[in-house]
């Protein structure tokens, strides 16, 4: 099990670092709620908007 964890942690870290550095240069950390008009943490629209 230790070996699994070492592989998972190192691979996961490498993946996170790689995708971070190849991502577009942008501004601050955002959450879906930053985008106005959302009715839930994931950014779902409100029922009343239908």
């Amino acid at each position: 099990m230790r070996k699994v964890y070492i592989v998972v942690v190192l691979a996961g870290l490498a993946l996170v670092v790689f995708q971070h550095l190849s991502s577009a240069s942008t501004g601050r950390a955002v959450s879906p709620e930053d985008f106005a008009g959302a009715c839930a943490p994931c950014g779902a629209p409100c029922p009343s908007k239908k």
Partner: protein
Amino acid sequence: MSTATAAVPAARNRFVADRLFLSLAVMATAILLALVLLDGQPASAGLILGGFALGIAFFKFEFSYTASWRRFLTKGEAGGLIGGLIAIAIAAVAVVPVAALFPNYGGAIAPLGPSLIIGAFTFGIGMQLAGGCGSGTLYTAGAGSGRMLVALAFFVVGSVFGSLSLPAFLALGGVDPILASDYLGPWGGLVATLASLALAAFVIALVAKKRGANFKPSRAYVAGGVIIGLLLIAVFAAGGHPWSVTFGYTVWGAKIARTFGVDFSNAAFWKWPGPQHALTDSVLTDTSSLTDFGMLLGAMAAAAEAKPFASGAWPPAKSLLAAVVGGLVMGWGARLGFGCNIGAFVGGVASGSLHGWVWFGCALAGCFIGIRLRPLFGLSRE
């Protein structure tokens, strides 16, 4: 034990720390912190550190929502359940008024309808099969449980399916979020929220008493509740919204699926601005992912400091199957229910949103079913 071991001085047998995993956890955290700080995002560093501290706290206090809810349902033992409410109450003191008064801060809100109910109920089933919920899966997986690592992996998979299902379930209808501060103002809303927590604790204690069980939270649950409550405030301050766990999983799953060619361009969920940005931007710009990573690594560090890391054996296949099914079901249910025990229940109630209590009730009902399904996988009902 061989005689050779018996001859070794006692000091050498004392466990110091699992240096390999302790350094791994610290190094990985340092790398993530460096990346976000070099990116000019100190708040992101705050979220990683907040998550790290939460990982330590959950591990040290064994702060399990899943086990405590199971104990309440099977035996009426309410100490852990009420201890969990302490954290919410402390967080509410900051979240309710600040979210109402400051434009850059928001609470966790969600519409009330079939999606919430079905999602929360399904999540409840899953959390008892997996043996951990949103926070539970994260800190136990981080602390070296291979079984929970499997649950986490399938939680991620289930989340992607949940993202594809959510719009259809939302279309079934519902009512706009009901937020206490909208009706009672920032301070009236806080009073109402704290009152609802007190009422819940009272009712739960009553049930416990009727069943002849204890309802006083243990020292660990009180201390844990307080510390975790304060950390919730810190995470809220850094991220601008209450602690969210499962949105991160959804993003990881979708990003991985995308690299294997899955096309999300026609999925409604992934066209909403929040998810759309999260999918294309770095995972280190997603608040939920930042606390998730922090928590995994904090739990790892705490576990490595306490005992040899991941030294247990793999559980039997049936148990692993429960982890797989539980993870999948939780992932799907969390998207429909607008979060897990942390995002929807703790976050929702701490924000003064009615959906938090609805989530709790439905999830508890789901737990009841999930507990009954545990023996099918060779798991005990207790």
